[in-house]
């Protein structure tokens, strides 16, 4: 093994070639990283929901709410993932008007993605309930913990 390593070291030293230490990152890499983060997030939420179930945490209401929150976050990640994809595919000329969107309009017949884009952009309808379930679950657990601590005392 030492001989092989020594040979390779000598070979690489004696036959120099240009190296590219820094790799350039083009435009889509940011989107890809974001999409991969969505995938990781969604998988972790499903994993957590399964773990809570398999460890019998969900017998308590608080943990059940957190499990629901996990499922909703999983769905939201799928929606967001698709939304980003559709946004890229949708030509910008299909949106008429300038500004923040209050006075903008979308040409639904302009692309097969137009209709998906319209609904997928309203992802808060899933994201907010997911967060609300987490909040309610934590509040429930807190109340129960307070009672348990008081009972222990």
């Amino acid at each position: 093994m030492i001989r092989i390593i020594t040979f390779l070291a000598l070979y690489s030293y004696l036959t120099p070639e240009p190296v590219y230490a820094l790799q350039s990152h083009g435009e889509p890499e940011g989107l890809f990283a974001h999409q991969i983060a969505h995938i990781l997030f969604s998988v972790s939420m499903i994993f957590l929901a399964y773990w809570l179930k398999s460890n019998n945490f969900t017998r308590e209401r608080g943990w059940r709410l957190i499990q629901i929150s996990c499922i909703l976050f999983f769905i939201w990640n799928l929606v967001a993932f698709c939304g980003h994809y559709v946004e890229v595919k949708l030509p910008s000329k299909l949106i008429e008007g300038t500004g923040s969107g209050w006075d903008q309009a979308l040409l639904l017949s302009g692309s097969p993605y137009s209709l998906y884009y319209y609904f997928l952009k309203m992802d808060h309808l899933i994201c907010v309930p997911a967060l609300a379930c987490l909040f309610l679950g934590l509040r429930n657990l807190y109340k129960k913990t307070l009672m348990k601590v008081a009972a222990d005392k």
Partner: protein
Amino acid sequence: MTGYYSLAPVWISDVVGSALMLIISFGAIYYAHRLRNAEPSSIIWMYLLVLSAALAGFSISRAVAHLAKHAMLMAGYPHMWEFFRPYTGAFNSIAFIVVASVTFFFPKVQKINSEILNDKRALEQATRDIKALNRDLEALVERRTRQLSVSERKYRGIFEGSMDTIFVLNQKFIFEDINPTGLSLLGYDSLEDFIGKISLADIFVSNSDHTQFLEDISRSGAIKDMECRIRNSSGAELVVLLSVTVTTKDLSRRTNYVGIAKDITVRRRMEKQLHQADRLASLGQTAAGVAHELNTPLGIILGYTQLLLRNCQESDALHSDLKIIEKQTNNCKRIVQDLLKFARNSETKKSDVDLIECFKEAISLFGHQFEKEGVIVETRFENNLPKVFADGEKLKQVLVNLLVNAKQAISGNGLIIVTMKLNPDRRAVIVSISDNGCGMSTDTVEKIFDPFFTTKPVGVGTGLGLSVSYGIIQAHGGALEVESEEGVGSTFHITLPLTDQNHQNIYPDNLQ
């Protein structure tokens, strides 16, 4: 569905949703934080706090960015939004990865934490158990020590207070411990002189006893009531019943022996004396019968002989023959009288006798002869010796017999010690006559009082002296005993009981 559709619903959901996310995420952080504070050691609440924080970070990034985006676009600064947009996107990505990371790692961490907590609980329980055990152990040790102390005192009391000898021997049969009775029996003053220095072999008188002991103990591991003779430090022989056993059950690993020795010397001596007394009593009856039967014919022979002598002149040849018959008949009559004395059938005339005076009269008969032959007679008389109620003449005869015997036992110069004293309970007078003569063997001692038994040459003695003495002393309710060692000398002890009157004469204050 072919025309333009307003994006106002999307705008509304975005703005309202962003605002709600901000509020709810802070609410979630609030409760997660409170949970964490309620149970700081819980890893689950820690996880939920991190998860809530990451989601709040995401919510802030997303909601603020979305609200700012709308504000910037409405205000006509789209380039500013283009500037901030990559930052918010990157921050969201990081928040997702953080949430995913802590979520993926949480079960593992929770498992490790759970194991640590279980171990901690087990450790705490073990500590409590050990403390309780320690507490109980102290009490248990204290209780057992108390029991042990009681037991030790009990067995030490048995050991120390036993009237029999109790001892412990090591593997080489050397004494490791012995009780005070045993130490006293063997004649030692302190344990230091005895323990570890004296072995069982040292005290056995006979090698055959020692060999028998070793054979029995190696064969069966125990010895019960083995009668053997031992010797104490002053050389006196004792008869003991020896019982020894090994202290371990495994005979191949015997390390110690525990034994008990019961001193039966006095019992054996008493048995021997009783046996001798029985034998002598039986002999006395026989002798008395023979004496009675011989006494009459001897009297007739003597009478007729004397009648014939009266009618016979001294010059007559028959006269000398009749004289011989008369002399021998008188000898026979004396022997018969001695036999009767031995059988205690002779008459006794008792009165208060001063033993010292009695002795002086006895010694006056041949004192000068003793001096001439180099035998010194030493007297050791206790002061105020009471008189005894006895036949003075017969006692004198006894003293003469014993003194003559003592003198004959001494060849050449010697010493005779005559001691007179009260016995320990002061109910009898003991007269002891010791000599440093040739002494007697055990066999001789056993037969010394038998009639006609003598160690003297034929013609020197009849063998009735000690028998007669024995009979006289027995007739006085006393005892005649002998101690003798070959080559060392002999001692005769005469025990004469005091009558109540004699006893009161010693202690007049006792009279009530």
